[in-house]
């Protein structure tokens, strides 16, 4: 288990993002719109790093990626701040 966690953390550290999107302090529909706009500018396979503080965002981004066909490659939560690495398919 610990090894797995370590692996994930390493994975997280090695992840290079192509675009960073800061949605801290923004509430409900805004992060989704911003992510959509940012993802439209990305090429397939590129990774977006999203930072958000909206408590619904972890569930929201799950649904969003399912609907749009993109994937969350890594997720981190610390002190009511959420970080997502989303890869465009």
């Amino acid at each position, binding site marked *: 288990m610990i090894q797995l966690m370590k692996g994930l953390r390493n994975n997280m550290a090695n992840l290079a993002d192509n675009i960073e999107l800061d949605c801290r302090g923004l*509430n*409900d*529909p*805004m992060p*989704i*719109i911003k992510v*959509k706009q940012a993802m439209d500018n990305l090429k397939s396979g590129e990774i977006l790093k999203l930072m958000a503080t909206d408590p619904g965002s972890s569930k929201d981004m799950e649904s969003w990626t399912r*609907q*749009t066909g993109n994937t969350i490659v890594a997720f981190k939560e610390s002190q009511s701040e959420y970080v997502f690495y989303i890869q465009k398919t």
Partner: protein
Amino acid sequence: METVQEKQKDLVQFDLPTRVNELEKQVAELKENAQEDKVSLILFSGDFDKAIATMMMALGAVGMGMECTIYCTFWGVSVIKRKRFYKGKSLLGKMMTWMLPANSHGLNPSQMAFGPFGRKLFRYMMKGKFESLEGMLQQAIEAGVKFQICSPSMSMMEFNPDEWIVPPESAEICGVAAMYEVALKAKTAYFIS
């Protein structure tokens, strides 16, 4: 009207090319009637809180990669108003215009209105945390949300086509048939009353 099963039972007596042709026709028909990735919102209410919810739903739909159409009818027309126009209206029309809010800043919440103080309270509470109603409306227009304006309520309350804040390319005046065309093709339709 015969069902698809009945049609297919009848088909058995024909030869193969006829059957393939008939099936292709049926598939094309089904595809034409299939639902698309669209959301249809029917905004009946002119309340501040319901307008906020509508704009959030519209923006969310656009964010999820769906098309969205908002059909504004009756009090909902006040949400997309720019200013009051009195010219060329009858006395009752002028009265209606005077009684209704001039633009979305005059919308009251459906509860806790407290005269004009409720809307100020809600706007104060949303400030800095949420996008304002006008900001969300502007974003929705930029994101390509289509607006339909109910022609019966337009002629009844004597609205003027110049009154809308929505640019003409994303707004159209239409009746219930055009609304149904959109709503039937959409995956979900909401009536906000």
